[in-house]
């Protein structure tokens, strides 16, 4: 059977599974629709959270990013896992005890203010919508690469699938499809990784293989040596900007992770407070399987690529000797296949019919001199970072069904995250805005209908944005973390850990944190990302504040949020007694009932 047929079969089977689950897990009440009836097993919830969490970007792009940045890729690895420690200890169990349906609902009740709730809805919508644009484009890209349909068609198919289980099943349908999607995506990620690790190091566990030997010397030492010899930065030590920037970026991703509403609400679906605690642990176990494999895939695929185009890598011979660069005509089949997609490009600058892959912009004079002496006229191979994961099974010469599995895995990752975000968006609209602010008297069946209609509209909006991505689509995901970390995370945390924090303080804090973050990001990328409206001079040039990238500014936003909140709190009157009693009661597990909307 040819690859295309197998891919259609495997992807088709996975879709049939999701739809089957959707049919079985229809939601009949608002409790089922918002929080899956509050009866999800904590291990299952951990798996669903992992699928919710790991997006198309985690699955397809992260290993490539790490391969590019080397040590610098650490910010994503630690940032997107360390946040779960914060979530497990500082937020999840207390919000579960509070026992309502949404994050803005907690903020509204705790700060006894519809204003606070509305600000929280606003932060949630901005964070979730920016995040979902990336997912929808990811769905389109995944479909077009794997199934050979157009991106537009891919987005329509994706919308159709999500529609079936999200509109009818709500959180219940989403939860159980996410469990299935996790299984598909983790299998798809680890199988090729095990084989590439076996090929290169003889160790089947990628986590150990990365610390193992390649041809008699440590793999990482070999990689460091090869890339520096070719003029690239040393793999294991190159920082991302300054140490302060690395630090700040990691903090920003961690608190953003803990503050993202679509992740927090997953912990409203388990029966008890103690389940919320342990469920966060399971979520991180399932996430860590992929996140500890990714750096191995990154380093191994990078070394493998160098070894493929330059035979001196394996023999430890002279990288610059003419005969060691492979002839273009003799390149392996997988390179030919990926050239068609444009993700791999060859340009024979010196006309010798061989591929020279090195950093022609290096500052290292010795490397320059060697390249000149060898008659190299510039780097001839351009590799899109996504290739490292997408082409991995082909590079490792795995059977076609594994390649098909990777396709299903990439789609599972994109669809599961999109569904989780859609859930957060639609419940913010139907529960927080319609029921909470505009029409508190709405009946349960009308609210359920409103929830389903909001979900359907959210899918259409997401699809529209995926089809017509605003110019700023790239890089918006990082902004979602900045917003969640600088506005929602501090507000929720103070709501639990500071009994005296009042409504004025929390609102001023959220607005200040959000403003600082948006100000710095807009200064670099334009007001609301409109090209030409950048005002980077006002912040002292590119990365003007302490050399921190705009994606890492959420940390400063959070500090400002805390500072403003405590200052305002000091000069305004303390919260009423019943609110202080509410804080007392959410701090202890005893007496947690099922999540309710009342």
């Amino acid at each position, binding site marked *: 059977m040819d690859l295309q047929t197998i891919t259609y079969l495997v992807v088709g089977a996975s879709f049939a599974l999701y739809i089957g689950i959707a049919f079985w897990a229809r939601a009949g009440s608002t409790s089922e629709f918002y929080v899956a009836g509050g009866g999800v097993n904590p291990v299952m919830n951990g798996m669903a959270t992992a699928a919710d969490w790991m997006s198309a970007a985690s699955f397809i792009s992260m290993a490539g990013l790490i391969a590019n940045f080397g040590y610098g890729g650490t910010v994503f690895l630690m940032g997107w896992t*360390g946040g779960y420690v914060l979530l*497990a200890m*500082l937020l999840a169990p207390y919000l579960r005890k509070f026992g309502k349906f949404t994050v803005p609902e907690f903020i509204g009740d705790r700060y006894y203010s519809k204003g606070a709730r509305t600000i929280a809805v606003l932060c949630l919508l901005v964070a979730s919508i920016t995040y979902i644009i990336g997912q929808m484009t990811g769905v389109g890209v995944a479909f077009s690469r794997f199934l050979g349909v157009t991106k537009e068609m891919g987005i329509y198919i994706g919308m159709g699938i999500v529609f079936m289980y999200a509109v009818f099943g709500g959180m219940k349908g989403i939860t159980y499809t996410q469990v299935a999607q996790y299984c598909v995506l983790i299998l798809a990620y680890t199988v090729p990784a095990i084989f590439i690790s076996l090929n290169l190091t003889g160790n089947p566990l990628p986590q150990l293989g990365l*610390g193992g030997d390649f041809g008699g010397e440590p793999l*990482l030492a070999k990689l460091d040596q090869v890339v520096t010899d070719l003029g690239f930065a040393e793999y294991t*030590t190159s920082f991302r900007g300054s140490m302060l920037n690395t630090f700040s970026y990691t903090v920003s991703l961690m608190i953003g992770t803990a503050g993202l509403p679509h992740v927090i609400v997953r912990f409203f679906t388990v029966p008890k407070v103690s389940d919320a605690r342990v469920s966060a*642990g399971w979520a991180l*176990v399932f996430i860590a399987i992929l996140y500890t494999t990714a*750096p191995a895939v990154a380093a191994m695929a990078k070394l493998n690529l160098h070894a493929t185009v330059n035979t001196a890598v394996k023999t430890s011979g002279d990288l610059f000797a003419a005969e060691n660069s492979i002839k273009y005509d003799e390149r392996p089949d997988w390179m030919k296949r990926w050239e068609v997609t444009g993700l791999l490009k060859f340009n024979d600058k010196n006309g010798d019919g061989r591929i020279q892959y090195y950093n022609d912009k290096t500052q290292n004079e010795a490397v320059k001199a060697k390249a000149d002496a060898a008659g190299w006229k510039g780097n001839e191979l351009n590799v899109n970072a996504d290739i490292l994961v997408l082409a991995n099974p082909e590079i490792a010469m795995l059977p076609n069904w594994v390649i098909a599995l990777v396709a299903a895995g990439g789609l599972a990752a994109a669809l599961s995250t999109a569904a989780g975000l859609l859930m957060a968006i639609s419940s913010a609209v139907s529960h927080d805005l319609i029921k909470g602010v505009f029409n508190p008297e709405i009946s349960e069946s009308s609210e359920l209908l409103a929830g389903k209609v909001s979900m359907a509209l959210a899918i259409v909006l997401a699809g529209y944005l995926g089809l017509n991505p605003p110019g700023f689509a790239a890089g918006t995901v990082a902004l979602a973390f900045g917003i969640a970390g600088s506005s929602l995370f501090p507000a929720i945390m103070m709501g639990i850990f500071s009994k005296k924090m009042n409504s004025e303080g929390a609102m001023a804090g959220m607005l200040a944190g959000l403003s600082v973050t948006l100000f710095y990001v807009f200064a670099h990328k334009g007001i609301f990302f409109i090209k030409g409206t950048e005002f980077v001079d006002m912040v002292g040039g590119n990365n003007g504040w302490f050399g921190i990238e705009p994606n890492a500014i959420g940390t400063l936003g959070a500090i400002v949020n805390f500072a403003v909140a405590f200052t305002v709190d000091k000069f305004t009157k303390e919260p009423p007694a019943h609110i202080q009693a509410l804080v007392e009661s959410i701090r202890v597990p*005893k007496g947690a009932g099922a999540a309710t909307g009342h």
Partner: protein
Amino acid sequence: MQDSNGYWAATLGLLSKILVVWFLVSYVAGILLAPMLNNFHLGGYPLGFWFAQQGSIYVFVALIFYYTKKMGEIDRQFGVEED
């Protein structure tokens, strides 16, 4: 009557202990001291790099399960566990 102050103090004590470890493995070993730790090796891994891309994640997982276990004990000690 529950001793809610005692319970909350015990909880905060546990959280502080865990957050110190959390900070040490990620920000100290994985970032601030990483260049220095890279002079040591764990198998083929430079140690600072290992903390940054592997070790810190394993410790995060262990910390959450440790927290879950200890919180369960504190809940029972103060009689505020769920039924």
